[in-house]
């Protein structure tokens, strides 16, 4: 088939734009890779370079110093991410489905009820007291899962995506005698794979990158998720480098600068592999037509 002229122009322009943006996104990451295997002194003196001046794997050595701890931290993060994402996604979609139902009279009231929480908040203290004193979540895995379970923004975005499903589908299902929950489970979920994949990705990323809840609620080292585990290593190194050693003990130079970068590498690697899996659901045309037939 002959490629039309407008296609050609678009493709050339498009590829150039995408390539440029991709380049900007990749180059810093390359710097991170090379920087993470540079010595502390060289980073402070020479800055980040694509070709390191003094190679040193000290940062990785420190991270992998106790592989069992690192594996454990990965395990915690993966477990929390999987459980949290699946549960969160289910409730998010279910809530969005109700908010999108035209025959649900109070849907706007409920939307406002949810939305209001994004504008007003009581601050850290009462929330912390709630989590620790009333929900008793200190030092539990629930403390890592529960706070990120549902997000108003995602619910409302999901509701918006559902609008693209024609009402006729719901009505015909209703006529067939299907209840709301069945419709949601059998019709809506399969029909909204791209948006489910998107929201699921966002939820998963939140879990993956979270260290804040671990910082607040988890004291036990064996329960640290990956990001907090790495964060702890970094703050330890920073402390050793910056602290005023009062007793006059020689202080070894710790690779805190390369550590910042090595952390990024260690934490990003696995989740980037997840992305193609999500992309699988980004296939055009599986939506309405497929079901109609």
């Amino acid at each position, binding site marked *: 088939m002959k490629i039309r002229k407008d296609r050609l122009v678009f493709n050339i322009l498009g590829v150039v734009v995408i390539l440029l943006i991709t380049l900007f996104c990749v180059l810093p990451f390359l710097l991170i890779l090379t920087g993470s295997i540079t010595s502390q002194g060289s980073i402070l003196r020479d800055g980040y370079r694509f070709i390191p001046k003094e190679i040193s794997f000290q940062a990785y050595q420190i991270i992998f110093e106790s592989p069992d701890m690192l594996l454990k931290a990965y395990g915690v993060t993966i477990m929390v991410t999987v459980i949290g994402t699946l549960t969160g996604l289910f409730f998010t979609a279910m809530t969005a489905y109700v908010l999108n139902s035209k025959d649900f009279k109070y849907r706007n009231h409920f939307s406002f009820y949810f939305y209001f929480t994004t504008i007003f908040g009581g601050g850290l203290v009462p929330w*912390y007291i709630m989590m620790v*004193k009333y929900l008793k979540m200190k030092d539990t895995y629930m403390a890592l899962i529960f706070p990120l379970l549902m997000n108003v923004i995602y619910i409302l975005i999901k509701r918006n995506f559902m609008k693209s499903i024609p009402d006729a589908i719901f009505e015909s299902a209703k006529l067939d005698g299907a209840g709301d929950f069945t419709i949601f489970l059998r019709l809506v979920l399969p029909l909204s794979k791209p948006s489910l994949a998107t929201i699921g990705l966002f939820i998963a990323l939140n879990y993956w990158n979270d260290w804040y809840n671990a910082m607040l609620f988890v004291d036990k080292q064996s329960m640290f998720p990956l990001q907090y585990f790495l964060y702890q290593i970094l703050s330890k190194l920073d402390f050793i480098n910056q602290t005023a*050693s009062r007793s006059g*003990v*020689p202080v070894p130079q710790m690779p805190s600068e390369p550590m910042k970068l090595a952390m990024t590498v260690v934490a990003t690697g696995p989740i980037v592999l997840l992305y193609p899996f999500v992309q699988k659901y980004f296939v055009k045309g599986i939506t309405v037509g497929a079901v109609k037939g």
Partner: protein
Amino acid sequence: MRKVRAICLVMAMLMLFSAILAGCGQEKPAAGDDNKQVASQSPTPASNSDNSQKEEKIDISKEVTLKMYLLGDMAKDFNLVYGELNKMLKEDINATVEVSFMGWGDYTQKYPLVFASGDDFDLIYTANWAFYNSQATKGGFLEITKDMLKKYAPRTYESMYEEAWEQAKVNGKVYMLPMNYKELNAYVYMVRGDLMAKYGISEIKNQDDFEKYLDAVAKNEKHLIPLDIGSDMDFDTLLRFEVLAPQNLDYLEPQQLNHFFNLADKSSGKIVNIIETPEFLEFAKKMKEWKDKGYWSKSALVNKVSSKESFINGKSASAIMNLSTANGTYTSVVASHPEWDVKVFDGMNGKGIPIKPYIQNGMGINANSKNPERALMFLDLVKNEQRYADLVTYGIKGVHYDLTPEGYVVPLENSANYPIDGNCNWGWRDDRLFRQVQGGIPNYNEIRSNWEKVALTHPVQNFTFDDSKVKNEVATVTNLWKTDFKVVVLGFTNDPEAEVAKLIEKYKTAGNDAIIAEQQAQIDAYLNSLK
């Protein structure tokens, strides 16, 4: 209209539930109050009845676990060392400690929260820079009385410096056991001997010599920053050399208020607002000159690396630090760069050397603690018994450290797994039990003894500012210290005269005069109360 109704509905619900929560909340503070009263009262009758049953032993038949919060990060061998500690504690006071750490990155957030949540931990590290004042005024700590000390920590009662006890007072009450350790707040220059020889500088005795050194480096060593200052940690060190020390001035805590007093003038505690003095203007001009000559980076304002770290890594030619830090740094730099011929010079000129407040390290007891007696007994042991102090400060003998016949500490290979004096053991540090580490700066003792001869204390150092009436002003002034003040101190000005005037104006707008008035009134009242 609908929207209004929705909001009303939400508000109504909110109010309903705040009422419910209020119901739940009431128990807790009341319980906290009770605890506190019980704890602070019980020793009193007990000590009264002491007369009748003098030999009465403290009842320790019930085994308790003391929950303790420390700042920093858990060292690799921490549990090993504290396992040893717990064996000893079990035997001596039938108690063990269970330690949780708050990392350096998050203690500012976590610290107030453990109090706010009503957690019943027993002990926590505290210091004048780590929320001692604010948590004490909010009712977070248990009040510690001398009667309690007599009964549960008798050796501490005997050995404690009276000044330290006075310093710990907030509104007349003590909420921490401060460290019992004298530390001088004085600084040294660390420079490279090879560069000094190259440019014919034989000695650095004062700021002028130092300027010559910086100048030679700035002109000839293009790849080196002469002095890499600017980070939030050390941007004001030159201020100390140029303005503070010569006039015997020192910071009134908290530092970020930028108020000073005269160490040498013991009779008065007059606040010096340094930015309004002619010396400061001179300093501002000099700093602009130095900055323009390239003595430090043009990006110094956002520098995040301390001058010490930059120096160690060969990025800069000099650093300024306190003596004990210099001691440790010296050893490691001599090992890694012997060709630098690192030299350390006294930067104080024999003036303005204060003994640091004792409350910069200490231990507090939680108001909700169920075992304050046992907590005090624990502190009494680590503060007074060498075997306890050695264990928590240096680790296990033969594993982490060894002792020379003269009593110097020698770090062993495993020392890295339990860094010497690096495990938040500072809260109970004591002069009598603290050991020197072998090695370090050759002229260490000379500098230190010179300083000790002229070191000053002042009653105002013991004064703690209650900022509750001027909190808003304190917030805005704090902001200026980290921004506008820093800009002038590092010489990033075009016209120092005009910009210092502007700075003074900004401080006025921020309400600095109100703070000074309030602080001065409190200081005067405090000094009067001592007479």
